[in-house]
């Protein structure tokens, strides 16, 4: 059993809420739009501080996204926040037409994405979202890995002129250690160098990928770890470099098809054919807590390390 013992674990929603509050304090164009999700989006303090700038449309996701597009037309920079499962599945045409196709300056924040809602089941899991959103032209899609990157992604989204979707987890993650902390939309970060294979992950899987690389190193396998936080637009240079190692494992808290792994595979199949394993969920999931689901489907450091060994034709040490 690989264990990973970070100094502390964090809920990225806190970084999200803190950051939009900071931005709002210096830019009165920043507004928050919610669907009765003020608590789950942690917007209570924002609302207390900027009561005129928190727009709660009630339980109406289609209207929430369209209202966000309208606010952008009126010169605002709206952060439209709701549970990822409803924001995407319920309001997909509004995301496509009112935000992306219209190139509206809307920032969509899918809160508690992935399997954070655990036992609540597949209705509340948001694991199809990366595949769906990735298919939409002109929509920037960011899946931050930790609180620092969440804050940076929110700042970058606010500064970017155009529609952005930020996928925010509530599953506790550690703050990653970085030698050169820098976030830019469309640029992956290589958190660990290694030439035997590359692990490309994002969101809650990044710290697990780092732990897997640590374990593999003990076995003499040098794994590069790439945090591909921006899924659209994809950092193809980072993928090409990863492919040059000869093997890629992708890992994401989402469907194993069509998401980050699919994006990497599309590029590699055409430009840099390479052996791959794509880790993610198979489909509608059984009842279980978020952590149980992650364990059960191998979205753990153990699971990533096992996929790496399998890909390299090496047995477990």
């Amino acid at each position, binding site marked *: 059993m690989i264990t990973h013992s970070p100094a502390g674990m964090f809920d990225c929603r806190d970084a999200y809420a803190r950051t939009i509050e900071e931005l709002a304090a210096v830019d009165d164009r920043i507004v928050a739009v919610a669907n009765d999700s003020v608590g789950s989006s942690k917007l209570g303090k924002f609302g207390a501080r900027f009561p005129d700038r928190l727009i709660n449309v*009630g339980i109406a996701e289609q*209207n929430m996204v369209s*209202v966000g*597009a*309208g606010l952008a*037309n009126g010169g605002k920079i709206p952060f439209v926040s709701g549970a990822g499962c409803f924001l995407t599945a319920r309001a997909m045409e509004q995301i496509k*037409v009112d935000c992306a196709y*219209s190139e509206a300056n809307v920032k969509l924040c899918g809160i508690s994405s992935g399997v954070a809602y655990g036992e609540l089941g597949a209705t509340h899991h948001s694991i199809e979202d990366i595949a769906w959103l990735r298919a939409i032209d002109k929509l920037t899609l960011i899946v931050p890995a930790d609180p620092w990157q969440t804050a940076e992604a929110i700042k970058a989204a606010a500064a970017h002129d155009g529609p952005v979707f930020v996928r925010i987890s509530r599953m506790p993650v550690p703050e990653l250690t970085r030698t050169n902390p820098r976030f830019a939309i469309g640029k992956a970060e290589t958190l660990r160098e290694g030439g035997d294979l590359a692990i490309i992950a994002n969101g809650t899987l990044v710290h697990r990928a780092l732990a897997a690389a640590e374990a593999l190193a003990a076995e003499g396998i040098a794994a590069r770890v790439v945090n591909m936080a921006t899924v659209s637009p994809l950092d193809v240079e980072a993928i090409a470099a990863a492919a040059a190692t000869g093997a890629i494992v992708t890992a994401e808290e989402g469907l194993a098809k069509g998401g980050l792994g699919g994006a990497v595979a599309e590029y590699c199949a055409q430009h840099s054919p390479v052996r791959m394993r794509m880790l993610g969920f198979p489909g509608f999931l059984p009842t279980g807590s978020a952590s149980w689901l992650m364990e059960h489907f191998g979205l753990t450091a153990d699971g990533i390390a096992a996929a790496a060994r399998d890909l390299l034709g090496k047995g477990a040490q």
Partner: protein
Amino acid sequence: MVTHNTFLTADTRDHSLDRRAAHVRERANWMRRRLLRMIVEAGQGHPGGDLSATDIIAALYFDILRIDSSSPAAPDRDRFVMSKGHCTGALYTALAGAGFFPEAELETYLKPESRLNGHPNRTYLPGVETNTGPLGHGFPVAVGIAVAGQIDRADYRVFVLTGDGELQEGSMWEAAMFAGHRGLGNLTVIVDRNGLQQGARTEGTNSLEPLPDKWRAFGWEVVEIDGHDHAGLLTALDEAAQPRTKPRVLIAHTFKGQGVSFMRDQVGWHHGVPNAAQYAQAIAELDADAAR
């Protein structure tokens, strides 16, 4: 036949209602001929809904709206949102007539790489506020614009034209409920109540009535008007443009295909292209109307 693109603003509003109505009437007649020619040349279109909406759109673009085609993104401009986005014949002729793009460009309608797509696209054309086409989108976006104006205490007014069949979309009532809740007094919806949707009468498909009661129940002021009476349209829109504390809906009773006898109130002209004889007859009827 008028070929110039007269865009009259403040000076026309000072004119008598009769003069203003005459101007809108002339512009609407021009729009009807021009959009029918576009549809004939393109070989497709939505003439029924274009013609039911023409008088409403003419009243807005050629009288009511405080817009400037040389500054289409001015923050304080009035907003017009075309929620029934399939009726591009009416919208594009109005935008061209109001100077947002050259009238000659109407000849490119639906041609490869034209800015005049089958549904309006704001990234192609100045003057389009948001991309519409799928029903149930424009109105909720307009609600968001009105919320921004409310927050900023801005002077601009937000006008939306919806289809009546479009009111079968659930997102319209999400938007109506929220606009009522917020008391969006800067928002006016005009329902093009032609009674027909693509395949049949609205009341035979999924009935909308009692429509005024529905809007009232959602917190709206309701005014019913004749959507082809230019003076009545201007009066209702003038009143709607005054400051108030509730959103207002103008239920404009119209006919699909208005202005062309064989298209009027005919469900079959939702889509469709007149043949040469039909086109000649339509133009002759519109010529006769212009000469009245």
